[in-house]
């Protein structure tokens, strides 16, 4: 099963600039674990020390908000996950 994860610009510093990473997993949470296995620098950018998603992180599954309970969302082959960051500037 292959899922594409699209990473926000700020997160690409942890993936050598790669925007889209193909990962394996049955849920959004598993897919994020898989991408972290390959790019460990992403872990602290996405999760706090207790393993909870950082508040600034937003997850969209197939262009729809996956919030709340986004990590438990089931994914299927060909799904696309966008990981983006909330903005506060004005």
């Amino acid at each position: 099963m292959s899922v594409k994860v699209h990473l926000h610009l700020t997160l690409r510093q942890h993936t050598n600039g790669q925007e889209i990473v193909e990962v394996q997993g049955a849920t959004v949470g598993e897919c994020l674990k898989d991408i972290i296995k390959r790019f460990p620098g992403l872990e602290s950018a996405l999760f706090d020390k207790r393993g909870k998603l950082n508040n600034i992180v937003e997850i969209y599954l197939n262009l729809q908000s996956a919030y709340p309970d986004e990590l438990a969302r089931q994914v299927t082959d060909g799904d696309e996950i966008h990981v983006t960051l909330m903005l506060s500037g004005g």
Partner: protein
Amino acid sequence: MLSEQELTRYDRQIMIPGIGREGQEKLKRAKVFVAGAGGLGSPVSIYLAASGVGSLRIVDHDRVELSNLNRQVLHWEEDLQKEKVLSAHYKLEKLNRHVDLETMNKTISEENIQDLVKGCHAIVDAMDNLPTRYILNKAALDKGIPFFHGAVRGFEGRVMTVVPGESACLRCLYRGPVAQEKFPVIGVTPAVVGCIQATEVIKYLVGIGELVLNRLLIYDGLNMKFTEFKVKRNPRCDHCGEDRERIKT
């Protein structure tokens, strides 16, 4: 009633199908609350004033600093250290004398927001921090006033429009508090995002087009790409959800 001078002034937009004289009169009768006179507040208030929105109430608590001038185009070198609302008032008055301007040098808070938005038909989020955005979102829902969210960072921005009772609100996506930062930004980004917000306000006031409801529009200036994410009302949202369960902020 539009004067002959106003009919001439707004002629090119009155020509737009869906606006016409009737739409222009709707704009003239409207009062819009603009929260912030900075990067987003500049294009929002300039274009709303230019379009003939009858009344603008602009609130900001800052003074103009040199580091603002790369993006806050309402303020010029001669305005350094002036209150932003005074600088904004001066420019907007020169731009369109038909607009009734109310400018207030105040900090928006939970205590004063209900009074600040009283009598307004739209609330525009041109703030630079999330906590105040949520104060505006809540007030908009409580008062049943549409809320026009915009935010920027670097070359990126986002827009979402909230019509109370009809669409997801900004708080529906709330995960918890986020640390405040000194955010990087180039002036063209709030220019684009602020113009989209102003477009949304004009469409809403006139009653035409399709608003950015239940959608989050992301602008990526570096790749010159717009992405749209669907959002839906969160039943657990503490601002608009069914049970309004409180989330600690």
